[in-house]
């Protein structure tokens, strides 16, 4: 709110100054409000405008380079890759418009939306340039940098196949991450709680932990019955190390007084472990999840690129063989969306589980 309301002493209204100030402040607050709303609308328009330019560019700029604009039949309708691209742009614009309207209701969200406006505008412009450079005029080196319409065309061409491979990756990730974190927390508790286990296992954990999981690939591929289980094994290994060592750290750092308090309250060993040490270690456990999550993505893709019958990594390999780089980009796009979704989900779970900690960290 603006506070720079001044009374003009020469206007002879000095007596009413205070009253006026209050009223003026009310008016100015109202103006401020209107001003803010006006500015916010500009941010929404700015956000959408970049994508609108990309859309118009795609529509009006003529196709100069010799690119085959493939046409697909979907449900009786004919789509070419440009139609598809424009639908995606339109969908993006609608999403951002709705996001803008919904975010407008809440101060924090509004600020965030306004903050992101410039970036999103430039994103639209980048799409426009990319479209021109990659498809329309093809100034970029081909076939390595196809335009956005061509990349999205991959989904028209073999959407179900991409979906199938995405599911394969997701399944691999879920199984590997679940087993890895479970085993990791289990060993972490043992290491953190029993000094003997710490003595014998911790050095081993440290030595094996720094080796990138994919180094075990040759063993995994020969020792495990199926490629899937071999890849699961690799993900389990790479998740296990950070989760186990951070869990152990969290448990070891539990203040002695908390254990004493729990004992006095009548808690036995299992209460001390599962109701004192483990909850105390939760922040570390989640930090282990965060680290191993990133490792798991890397291991997952590497494993898929080195001998899996499916998955996004496999799809990249396959596409590369045919020099279909637009498909490589399509797979990368799916990965970006999938992995950020998983990361956001994990973060949401963490915020919920550690809500007792908020404010303590500051």
């Amino acid at each position, binding site marked *: 709110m603006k506070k720079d309301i001044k009374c003009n002493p020469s206007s002879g209204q000095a007596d009413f100054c205070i009253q006026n100030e209050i009223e003026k402040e009310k008016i100015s607050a109202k103006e401020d409000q209107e001003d803010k709303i006006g500015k916010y609308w500009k941010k929404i328009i700015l956000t959408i405008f970049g994508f609108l330019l990309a859309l118009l560019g795609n529509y009006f700029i003529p196709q100069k380079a010799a690119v085959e604009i493939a046409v697909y039949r979907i449900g009786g309708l004919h789509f070419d890759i440009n139609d598809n691209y424009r639908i995606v742009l339109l969908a993006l614009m609608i999403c951002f418009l709705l996001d803008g309207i919904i975010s407008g209701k809440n101060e924090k969200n509004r600020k965030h939306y306004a903050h992101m406006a410039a970036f999103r505008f430039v994103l639209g412009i980048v799409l426009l340039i990319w479209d021109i450079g990659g498809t329309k005029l093809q100034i970029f080196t081909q076939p390595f940098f196809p335009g956005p319409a061509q990349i999205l065309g991959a989904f028209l061409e073999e959407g179900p196949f991409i979906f199938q491979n995405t599911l394969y990756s997701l399944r691999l990730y879920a199984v590997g991450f679940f087993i890895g974190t479970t085993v990791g927390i289990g060993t972490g508790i043992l290491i953190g709680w029993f000094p003997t286990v710490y003595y014998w296992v911790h050095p081993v954990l440290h030595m094996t932990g720094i080796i990138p999981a994919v180094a075990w690939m040759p063993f995994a591929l020969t020792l495990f019955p199926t490629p899937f289980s071999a890849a699961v094994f690799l993900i389990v290994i790479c998740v296990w190390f950070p989760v186990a060592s951070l869990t152990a750290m969290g448990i070891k750092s539990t203040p002695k007084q908390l254990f004493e308090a729990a004992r*006095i*309250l009548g*808690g036995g060993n299992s209460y001390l472990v599962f109701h004192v040490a483990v909850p105390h270690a939760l922040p570390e456990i989640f930090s282990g999840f965060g680290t191993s999550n990133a490792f798991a993505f890397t291991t997952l893709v590497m494993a898929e690129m080195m001998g899996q019958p499916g998955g996004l990594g496999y799809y990249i390999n396959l596409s590369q063989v045919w020099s279909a780089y637009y498909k490589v980009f399509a797979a990368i796009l799916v990965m970006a969306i999938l992995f950020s979704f998983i990361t956001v989900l994990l973060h949401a779970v963490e915020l919920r589980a550690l809500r007792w900690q908020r404010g303590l960290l500051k």
Partner: protein
Amino acid sequence: MSENSGFLQLSHICRTYQDDENEIEALQNINLEVFRGEFVSLIGASGCGKTTTLRLIAGLDKPQAGHIYLEGSEITGTDPKRGFVFQQGALFDWLTVEDNIAAGLKARHIYRRNKEKVQQFINMTGLTGFEKAFPHQISGGMAQRVAIARGLINAPEILLLDEPMGALDSFTRAALQDKLRELQKISRTTMILVTHDVDEAIYLSDRIVIMTPRPGRISEIITVKIPKPRQRGGVEFLELRRELLEKFELASAKPQPEYVI
């Protein structure tokens, strides 16, 4: 065992700690009897072994010599019969106020049968409305009330309090003292309180145990005969206060020091 022969008995307790080079005699030949339902304060200079005494009674530590008996049976380890309130509360940060208070019941697997006790203690300690708050969301005074409620919910025969009000401002402290007195009146729990505050000791105690450091010993035990509830500004109160402060040779140095440390 009759009401009057030591409910809690400490006989010839010695406890030394081995430092890097020298031995510290934290406690040297401590003899003390505490009666059922009594409120006893331990008071004395820093390092005179007050915390050590409480920890021994709680069973968190063992004496090198001597024995501690509660109702005739020797104390060998911790027991929910002997509650403990730590100086900093030692609350479980990840549990709500309600769950912290219920912790003792849950740890002993008797929560289901005693659910209503939790709300009862929340109300008794004036924490109504903060059931779902986490420790980081409440004030220091409230946190200590949670710690006291958590200690009392197990219905201990004796509650040991190690400077539970040490970190609080004087208003909160006075309010909490009233609360503690009230709680003791209701529950008739025997309480042993470690404090640095002479006023607090006089206000709450039936007897005040004065300890001296190096080596830690009991120098005197004073019976407070002023009828309860006591007036903080009462004549007898101030008289006893002056007497106590003189014993610490501080009364003459400063006319009215707040606390003796």
